[in-house]
């Protein structure tokens, strides 16, 4: 039996607590905002690493984005991934989920012979959660989203996955290869391995693929391959509230609240 070949899709997002919106343009203020690995992607990488703790496997990180992603995502190599592929080209920019999943799928095809593809549940900036199913469709594999635990039977070539559903969970078995999206905060991503650090941040060679390095059709990538158009932006309306301050001892205030609750609920 050969080793498991795993791809973990990861991206870099602006730190959520630092996000500011320019009042005039309503666009993200990029200057001075620090970036981080999309937190859900850390759970995806951890699930892959847990699998590798248990059986022979090779983990490749795959990302699409500008060159500044590279130093940030090297953290994944220090945590335990073997390879890192970055699809970086201006032609890829402006992609919606259709173009993003197409481009990533072409990258996965180029890496070749993959058993499992892990993604975070969603990105902290886009928050659509549509990349994992889209990827699975391009790759013609099954998918399980919102996974919290996973084991693999390499002999039978199936994955057994625990999936969060409304009010509970289910256990699914899927044929490999498969795309798995990992439920946010379902595991505790490990710290970097200090023995790997010099290799991960200095020696390791990151494979950078531009538009000419992968088999992509021009009409399918970047802005041109994206059916979705932003037709308007506005500031969210804030409903005017009474803003009435209730004062007094906790007991007095409690009585005031109870009185109002009674008024509202009867």
């Amino acid at each position: 039996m050969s080793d498991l070949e795993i791809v973990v899709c990861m991206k870099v997002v602006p730190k959520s607590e630092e996000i500011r919106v320019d009042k005039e343009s309503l666009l993200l203020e990029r200057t001075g905002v620090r970036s981080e690995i999309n937190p859900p992607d850390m759970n995806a990488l951890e699930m892959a690493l847990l699998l590798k703790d248990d059986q022979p496997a090779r983990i490749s990180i795959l990302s699409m984005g500008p060159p500044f992603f590279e130093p940030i995502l090297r953290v994944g190599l220090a945590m335990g991934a073997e390879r890192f592929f970055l699809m970086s080209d201006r032609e890829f920019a402006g992609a919606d989920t259709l173009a993003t999943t197409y481009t990533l799928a072409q990258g996965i095809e180029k890496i070749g012979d993959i058993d499992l593809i892990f993604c975070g549940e969603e990105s902290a900036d886009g928050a659509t959660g549509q990349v994992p199913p889209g990827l699975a469709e391009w790759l013609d594999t099954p998918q399980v989203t919102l996974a919290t635990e996973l084991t693999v039977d390499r002999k039978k070539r199936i994955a057994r996955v625990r999936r969060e559903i409304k009010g509970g969970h289910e256990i699914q078995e899927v044929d490999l290869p498969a795309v798995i999206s990992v439920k946010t905060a379902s595991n505790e991503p490990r710290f970097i391995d200090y023995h790997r650090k010099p290799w991960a941040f200095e020696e390791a060679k990151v494979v950078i693929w531009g538009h000419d390095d992968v088999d992509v059709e021009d009409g399918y990538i970047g802005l041109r391959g994206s059916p979705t158009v932003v037709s308007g932006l506005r500031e969210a309306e804030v409903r005017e509230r009474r803003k009435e301050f209730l004062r007094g001892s906790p007991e007095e205030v409690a009585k005031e609240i109870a009185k109002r609750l009674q008024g509202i609920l009867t």
Partner: protein
Amino acid sequence: MVASLYAPSEANKALWVFLEIEGDGFASVSVELLSKGRDLADRAGWTLCGLLLGSDISDRANQAFQYGADEVWLLDHPLLAQFDVCGYSHATMQAIKEGKPSVFLLGATANGRDLAGRLAVRLRTGLNADCTDLILDEDRAVLISEVTGFGGGVIALLESAEHCPQMSTVRPGVFIANDPDPSRQGDLVEMKVNLKKAEIRSRIVARHVGEGVDLTQAPVLICGGRGIDGDFESLRELAALVDGEVGATRPPVDEGHIDRERQVGQTGIVCRPKVALNFGISGAFHFIVGIQDAETIIAINTDPEAPIFNHADYCIVENAHKILPALIKTLKTERE
């Protein structure tokens, strides 16, 4: 430019809603979408269709008619008894190719998102995820979807006018469900499903569903944030007294004090209660998104400058740990 499987010029002026089966009926968001869809279809003079997939479920078509569907497209097959995204995608595709709707809406539930994400790629069309409002521009036959972005402070309007169907998943709880009209009837379109066992590529081997909680339907919401230091026991006691449900901001969820299914806000659940009581919550915008449609908002926080007070009808500057026991005691006394 990538072209969708069928062009907008070939599409029928129909709005399709994926009907997600839950218990004896539909997921609440499916009913919400039928209600909103009815309204959009009436204004534009379009047809509203429910897409019903499952095994032995034809009796549910009537429910969909009562909630506003003009037509129900029924795909009844033993292999559709359980939701398998590959099987459901295959069957849905068959119906879409036949019906060629202009718009296709799904609830942004776990299964709704799974299905939508796959189908949008198969159809080579655009997909707007987790929308909070829908507008139908009838002159252009274009669906405009509203999404909140960047932590909730900005609303973006999205459209994919050149591709069909125009697809959106809609966040549960943003539209109000109409009451069913028992006298309402519609047309049942039964489709013969061509589905082979080999197309089903996942198997559900076990399922555990406990007391499912649906915060979107709770009339009273009791929320706790960092300032209650994990004391959700008191919040539950209070909730029991007022027939409410307990929700939380993200930090207590991350710290494991309460289940993630009770997280309220941008990345959690958007609620529409009669009243939301907020204990020890500062009021970051991504939380406010989850309660801003409450009829009344009450907030308790030690910091008089806390942003939550800008979004509250009644503001109490006090430690939540002091108000909680007093309020519980008052309500208990009233009950006696």
